């Protein structure tokens, strides 16, 4: 990054760039390390419960050994969803982003106290929600659909986790803003920009769930109002629910675009398109939530169809990603002597666990993506909605594309944060492959069970009276996958804990940063400015959600009393 166009006047007014000191780095890394440590601890409990679920489906009931800690299958499933999909992801992402943004900008956090406060609020929220959740007073699953009524402290705790993550985001925005003031006329560095776009998308998306909790669930669970409106609650939840999946995915994209190519000698193939992709996600991620409500009563088909259309356009940024990322990696493999149409693939950095994990994650995401388009296809959704196809789908996306990528990131980030060597890299490599095989088997089996037999999700299948013997081969396939996953999870924690106690290393591990393939290519201004995209995103949400939400709120009927049914 060398030259820029700036006027003399700009120059004179620009504040002096603040240098990044060791101390600043220590602050950011303390936040990152704490956040990731908590996320990974949550995941340890989460995956253990996942294994128990998979085994229950083939009649191996382990719940009797963990009384009263995990009272029922559904108590466990609630914790599995919350700890994995909400806690592990959010805490890992906040940690990773905090580490990455200061390096990308080469500038300290503008207000470190804001990021510290954010993490603190997240932790308080986690502890608050943990009490009712662990004691089986909130076994409402991670979607907490009313009128099932959890203890109020559960809703409050989840809200605090979200609010804390907002503060983390504000911390990044202020930091990026300060950097821009100090560097007038320069393009925003790619990683800092995409981190901030992800957090901006998150702010917009979480408004839905924040409204649901603050206006419906909290007053009701505190007994201030007697009833609630389940469809409105569900609609507000899914306003948040779909962009939530992009909140899981975009951090993986940040790594795939901007870091992973450097781990295999490659370059970022097209920085222009990579930026465009992130802006498109900001624009399109939120106004698509009705694709989770295709089978809901009370929402006219026309609105559902509009959301189908927007969802389909959301496929393009992911198609672009597939091309750009593969091309970026291919550049590296060919530089290392790779030849042929596909022969170059062997030259990728497969021996490196950090690289291998992320590349395997991408492969699983191809299947996840295809399944996702199917789910989004309006009436095609009738074939799979709420069948176990759906967990099959998202174990290839959030539990693989995102989670396995995060493991890959951890294989350089844990050494970077602890200043210790990665413990047993061979085991880490085996971890990546066993996760890949396990998810492939479990994912395949669950997809088929849902599609062919309509086996329901969120169900203790091993005890269901309607389960048919025809399901058994697939349930067995899934159980084999689950076994691989159990081994994989064990390896993961051996490597991570081993690293934590490994001896100090003098070799400093740095964040991998992929250079653009064509560094002299200019970036059009519109790919560097926030205003059009932010306004566009808000406008699109108003169009796609405004009228229906207005109607649901106008016709609100607080007639459903709360239920405790677990």
């Amino acid at each position, binding site marked *: *990054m*060398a*030259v*820029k*166009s700036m006027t003399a006047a700009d120059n004179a007014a620009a504040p002096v*760039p603040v*240098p990044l000191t060791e101390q600043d780095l220590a602050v950011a890394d303390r936040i990152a390390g704490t956040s990731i440590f908590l996320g990974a601890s949550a995941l340890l409990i989460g995956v253990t419960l996942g294994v128990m679920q998979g085994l229950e489906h083939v009649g191996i009931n382990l719940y009797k050994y963990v009384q009263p800690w995990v009272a029922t299958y*559904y108590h466990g499933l609630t914790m599995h969803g919350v700890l994995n999909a909400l806690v592990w992801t959010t805490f890992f992402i906040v940690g990773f982003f905090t580490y990455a943004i200061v390096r990308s900008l080469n*500038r300290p956090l503008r207000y470190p106290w804001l990021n510290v406060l954010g993490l603190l609020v997240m932790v308080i929220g986690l502890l608050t929600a943990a009490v009712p959740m662990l004691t089986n007073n909130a076994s409402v699953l991670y979607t907490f659909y009313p*009128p*099932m009524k959890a203890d109020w402290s559960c809703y409050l705790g989840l809200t605090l986790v979200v609010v804390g993550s907002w503060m983390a985001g504000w911390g990044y925005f202020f930091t990026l803003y300060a950097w821009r003031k100090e560097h007038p006329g320069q393009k925003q560095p790619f990683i800092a920009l995409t981190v901030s776009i992800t957090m901006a998308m998150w702010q917009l998306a979480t408004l839905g769930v924040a409204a649901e909790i603050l206006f419906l669930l909290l007053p009701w669970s505190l007994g201030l109002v007697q009833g609630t*409106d*389940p*469809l409105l609650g569900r609609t507000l939840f899914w306003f948040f629910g779909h962009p939530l999946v992009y909140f899981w995915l975009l951090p993986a994209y940040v790594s795939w675009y901007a870091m992973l190519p450097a781990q295999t000698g490659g370059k970022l193939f*097209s920085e*222009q*398109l990579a930026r465009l992709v992130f802006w498109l996600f900001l624009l399109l991620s939120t106004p698509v939530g009705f694709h989770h409500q295709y*089978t*809901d*009563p*009370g*929402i*006219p*088909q026309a609105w559902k*169809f509009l959301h*189908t259309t927007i969802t*389909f356009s959301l496929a*393009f940024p992911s*198609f672009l990603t597939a091309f750009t990322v593969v*091309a970026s990696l291919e550049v590296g493999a060919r530089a290392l002597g790779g030849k042929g149409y596909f022969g170059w693939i062997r030259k990728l950095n497969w021996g490196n666990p950090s690289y291998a994990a992320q590349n395997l994650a991408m492969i699983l995401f191809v299947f996840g993506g295809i399944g996702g*388009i199917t789910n989004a*296809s*309006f*009436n*095609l959704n*009738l*074939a799979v*909605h*709420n069948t176990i196809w759906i967990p099959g789908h998202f174990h290839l996306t959030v539990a693989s594309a995102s989670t396995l990528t995060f493991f890959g990131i951890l294989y350089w980030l844990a050494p970077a944060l602890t200043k210790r060597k990665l413990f047993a890299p061979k085991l880490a490599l085996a971890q990546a492959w066993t996760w890949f095989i396990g998810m492939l088997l479990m994912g395949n089996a669950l997809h088929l069970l849902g599609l062919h*037999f*309509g086996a*329901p*999700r*969120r169900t*203790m299948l091993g005890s269901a*009276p*309607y389960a048919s013997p025809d399901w058994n081969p697939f349930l067995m396939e899934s159980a084999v996958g689950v076994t691989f996953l159990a081994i994989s999870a064990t390896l993961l924690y051996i490597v991570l804990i081993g690293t934590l106690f490994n001896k100090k290393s003098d070799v400093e591990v740095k964040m991998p940063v992929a250079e653009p393939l064509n*560094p002299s*290519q*200019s*970036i*059009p*201004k519109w790919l560097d400015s926030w205003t059009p995209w932010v306004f566009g995103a808000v406008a699109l949400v108003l169009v796609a959600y405004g009228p229906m939400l207005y109607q649901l709120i106008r016709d609100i*009927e607080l*007639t*459903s*009393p709360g*239920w405790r*049914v*677990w």
Partner: protein
Amino acid sequence: MSEQTNPIEDPVVEEAQDQSAPVEGGLSEDAHLHIDKYESMWLKIAFIIMGVFFLSVIVSSFAIGIQLPGAYARIDPTTVNDPGSPFAEPGLRELAPGKYEAYYRAQIWQFTPREIHVPLGAEVSFYVTSQDVMHGFKISDTNVNVMVIPGQVSTLKHTFDKPGEYKIICHEYCGQLHHTMYAQIFVDEPTEEVASGAQN
């Protein structure tokens, strides 16, 4: 400015002349979006894939008529069992020869009615509501798949062209015994008597 050394960057050469010219690798008002040849091919393929999906959605929903549930009616869940409510005595009713309506009440952890029999070829309109929490209503081997939400009446229609047993499975978590919640539909082939009678 020239005194300040920026620790982050390579030394910057400031060019005094033409400020408006696009600068390599920086920002530029009039830089174009560059799309690689293969990438543009790939995008076209993506466009075709999505186009095919889009068309099949349109054809199947508007030409073939595989409909999603829409907005039908609301109901106060605390009055579902009141006299006069169509869900107070749920069950199957014949509207015209071969045409039926079936009212289902969902509650933890059962559907009422538990079991119905319809003749082969019957067209059944289903109306479902819940008196407590959310439930699911999916009839195996059909396109009937709908959420049951307290406060709302869900409706979908199906013509039963194959004889045999169909299962209605609750596919939304509804509490401790959710996995036991299901009902049955038996589609009966015409008995010989009826069949021969129909032929005369």
